[in-house]
């Protein structure tokens, strides 16, 4: 505790009461009169700097913004080391992106799971019953090799980009050093790992480093015992999941043995369970806004401010409630100020903030394309809050250009007719209503059955090639992924000789055509507008697409069915939240296309050579949204090897830490980055002086 604290609550982590009211009365008054509730909150302007005018509402050792993979790991780690920990998250539940992930958690450096599999051993609980999936040579790893791999200048991918070249060396060294202890830490907190099976993006080329996380199906859900019921896992019914598992868990028998299921639920829920068990506290529905520093650009960080951002069910209007509530603090004041010895920013990246992400790709300013997992996280997810707040107190940025150096950072989804096209979430989870439908995954081949039109109803690219992603990386001497006979030489100039890159280059640019400016856009933003798949009943019949709930939903604004093309155009304009202009060309476009089909040639996009062209004539007619997805972000705040945020002069901003997607300089896809960052930040934060 600092000496100049204005208001002090002796119970660490408990809310301080406004004078004259106990906490119960305060909320009662707040519920009865919104005026009173607002008047009692500290004004945001006064909280921007630590000039003594701040009214602190909470006082803890460590406050963490964000309850995802970096935040929850940091919270448990700091709590293990004796700190009082308070986590704020804009969502109604804990887990962030981690909860809807595939749980593919790439670490390495000779971590415990690599060693287990290398020795041909099994897990202590006896759940794993299959032999290792990787050869021992693929698992023989150490932190020096890992560090070399994740800073390898010579690697260039099939999109002609260099994923490792621009990584921050200090950050990568610390990450590599902390991979083995982070694996141990996760296992100590109820996380079970499958056999190692390859390596996740950005995790290095030389070795196999990534298992998934799993639970075993059982009669009851028991995190300590490692079991989950089929109902909770979302596998009891093909079209339903559960409040525990936003995304139905996947069969992991090939990675573990019979009865195993895997995905982010097997990672996020155990960590959340452990955090709550150990006394970590949470304030949910609360977006982190500002960092409080002694002076705006100098001095140590004193705490943060966070505003009330309630998530309501879109059908009932009721406030959403987290799955578990132990340790939750229900605080609905508009703004609160939290004082802490250390602040850890783990509120994610900027893939959900169209204004921020547009600095890398201006066409992605289009808000019609949310980031992946937007239904679960809401509009406040991945909103660049850490970056924005960090810049306000003088933080530097790192690796911002690395957003463009991962082959699938943004891509066209083959899942149509849903706002959140990245996940496979089904009804049964409270946030499914934000998707409105599960969508129909038509695969790449399905694009042979449709035309894709832009916001004014015009075609813009060869539809057959529209969803094609860059192929897997290949390298001289083999090359594909670990476990597939890799014979890759790190830091070898031959990896990036231009003859090889020419041969490997496989990018089709359909996404870029989809995001192009067209005549429906207006200055200053020139929004790309939504994209639509247009097809007819014949296409539905040929492919067996199930045009029914939960796959499509005529009320969600991402699926339309009509008797005629003109009615279809009207429905799209009326029903889609980002269809700013009428699709004035749609009837002509369909007529022209049908003429091309009759002629057997597509002079606009030369599609006739790729697949049969089929007319769009048989009613009813369908329009399903095609979504461009910006999956995650790779640029962010600059941090050092202790996850301390560094300012524009290269100086550490004392008491301020960041991790996960909030951080730049590390072009690593997925969870491995966030968990290690959280582990380091949680360790370092408790060492902050009083």
């Amino acid at each position, binding site marked *: 505790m600092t000496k100049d604290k204005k208001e002090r609550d002796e119970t660490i982590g408990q809310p301080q009461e406004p004078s004259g009211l106990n906490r119960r009365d305060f909320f009662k008054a707040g519920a009865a009169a919104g005026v009173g509730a607002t008047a009692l909150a500290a004004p945001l302007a006064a909280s921007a700097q630590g000039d003594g005018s701040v009214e602190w509402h909470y006082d803890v050792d460590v406050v963490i913004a964000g309850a995802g993979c970096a935040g929850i790991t940091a919270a448990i780690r700091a709590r293990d080391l004796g700190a009082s920990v308070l986590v704020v998250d804009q969502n109604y539940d804990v887990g962030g992106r981690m909860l809807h992930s595939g749980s593919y958690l790439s670490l390495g450096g000779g971590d415990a799971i690599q060693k287990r599999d290398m020795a041909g051993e099994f897990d202590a609980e006896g759940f794993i019953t299959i032999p290792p999936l990787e050869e021992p040579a693929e698992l023989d790893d150490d932190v020096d090799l890992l560090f070399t791999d994740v800073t390898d200048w010579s690697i260039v991918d099939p999109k002609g980009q260099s994923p490792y070249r621009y990584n921050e060396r200090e950050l990568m060294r610390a990450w590599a050093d902390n991979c083995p202890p982070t694996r141990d830490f996760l296992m100590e907190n109820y996380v079970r790992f499958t056999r190692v099976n390859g390596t996740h993006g950005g995790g290095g080329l030389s070795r196999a480093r990534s298992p998934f996380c799993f639970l075993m199906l059982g009669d009851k859900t028991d995190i300590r015992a490692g079991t989950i019921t089929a109902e909770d896992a979302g596998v009891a019914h093909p079209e339903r999941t559960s409040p525990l598992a936003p995304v139905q868990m996947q069969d992991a028998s090939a990675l573990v043995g019979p009865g195993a299921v895997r995905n982010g639920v097997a990672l996020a829920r155990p960590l959340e369970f452990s955090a709550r068990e150990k006394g970590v506290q949470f304030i949910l529905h609360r977006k982190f806004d500002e960092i409080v520093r002694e002076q705006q650009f100098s001095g140590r960080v004193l705490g943060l401010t966070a505003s009330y951002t309630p998530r309501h069910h879109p059908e009932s209007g009721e406030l959403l409630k987290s799955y578990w509530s132990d340790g939750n603090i229900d605080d609905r004041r508009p703004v609160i100020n939290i004082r802490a010895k250390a602040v850890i920013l783990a509120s994610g990246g900027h893939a959900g903030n169209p204004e921020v992400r547009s600095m890398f790709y201006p066409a992605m300013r289009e808000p019609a394309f949310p980031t992946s997992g937007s239904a679960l996280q809401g509009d406040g997810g991945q909103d660049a809050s850490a970056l924005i707040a960090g810049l306000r107190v003088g933080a530097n940025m790192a690796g911002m250009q690395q957003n463009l150096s991962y082959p699938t950072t943004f891509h066209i989804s083959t899942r149509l007719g849903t706002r959140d096209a990245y996940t496979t979430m089904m009804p049964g989870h409270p946030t499914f209503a934000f998707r409105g439908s599960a969508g129909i995954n038509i695969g790449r081949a399905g694009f042979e059955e449709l035309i894709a039109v832009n916001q004014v109803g015009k075609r813009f690219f060869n539809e057959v090639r529209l969803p094609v992603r860059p192929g897997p990386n290949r390298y001289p001497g083999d090359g594909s992924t670990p476990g597939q006979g890799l014979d890759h030489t790190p830091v070898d100039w031959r990896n990036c000789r231009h003859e090889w890159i020419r041969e490997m280059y496989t990018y089709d640019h359909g996404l870029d055509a989809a995001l192009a400016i067209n005549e429906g856009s207006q200055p200053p933003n020139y929004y790309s507008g939504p994209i639509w798949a247009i097809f007819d009943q014949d296409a539905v019949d*040929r492919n067996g697409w199930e045009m029914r709930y939960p796959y499509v939903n005529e009320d969600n604004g991402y699926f339309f069915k009509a008797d005629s093309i*003109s009615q279809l155009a009207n429905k799209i304009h009326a029903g889609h939240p980002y269809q700013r202009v009428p699709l004035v060309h749609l009837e002509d476009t369909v007529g022209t296309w049908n003429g091309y089909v009759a002629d057997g040639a597509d002079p606009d996009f030369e599609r006739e050579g790729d697949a049969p062209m089929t007319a769009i004539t048989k009613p009813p007619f369908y329009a399903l949204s095609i979504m461009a997805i910006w999956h995650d972000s790779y640029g962010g705040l600059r941090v050092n090897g202790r996850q301390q945020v560094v300012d524009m002069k290269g100086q550490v901003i004392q008491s301020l830490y960041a991790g996960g997607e909030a951080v730049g300089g590390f072009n690593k896809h997925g969870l491995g980055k966030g968990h290690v960052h959280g582990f380091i930040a949680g360790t370092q934060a408790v060492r902050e002086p009083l």
Partner: protein
Amino acid sequence: MDADATVETIPVTLSLLSTPNPVDAGADFTLKAAVVCVPPLDLCATRLAIETSTGDDVGELLLTEFEEGESRGSIRMTAPSEPGPTILTVRFPANPDVGIPEDICAEIGFDIPAHASSVVVWDVPPAIEAGQSFAIHAGLRCSASCALEGRLLEVRDDQDRLLATATTGKTWQDTSALHFARITLTAPENVGNTVWRVSAPADGLEVPHSDGAMTFAVTTTLAGEHEIRVSAVDAKTNKVIADALVHAHPFRTTTDSQGNAKLSLPGGDYRIMVRASGHEPYIIEGQVKENMQITAILAPEVDTTEMDLWA
């Protein structure tokens, strides 16, 4: 808190927006509402009544989102079918407990145009032997879903010569208001493509409608000489593939439940394509000058895996 305490009245603003506006008679539109209080209040779960100018309730708008100090909600509605101006009133209910002692109302106006008519033509054979008869389906739809049964459809060629007439009947399967007719026609004697037109005059209707029309392509060919038999097989499972599309422009058909299809083609050069859901297309090019048997082995589509995302 004292139950008898008086809560100070707070300023409230109710804003409305509809998309699109103007809107066709009977067509969909989205009505959005935003409620702003000073100071900001989360008013989610409040239901706003929507009334016509005659006081009829036509909907209820639920506030579901609190963001940037605004409580917001939206509802998809159907425009009135009567052409002319119309006004909707949206009513936010009084809530004295939070300082809103009276209902707050706002109005939004629409000018409904004449009903729009659309013609749809389908089931035109992709290739018709010159001079042979064939059948198509044609339908007529009103934007306000008027029952357009018994309406005249006219088919004209590219010289505007009347080729056939028909009268619409009941609605087509799985459509809401597309009244259709089956029309038998005779293909031109010359080989090639031509464009014909189906039109639906709007005269004689009680409510004003626009005329409707649609063109369609007619492709005439020589008679088939050679039989091409195609068997579609999955490369991975060796199982036959039903409902695969077999295409040799302009001829096309689909495989049966045994994975078999046949086309009767005039001699010539063709690109024969076979496509099926979840598979890469099978493509072969060459000259057809005799009967042929083709086994099209289709490779299953391989999706990008998490391991493929490896960089």
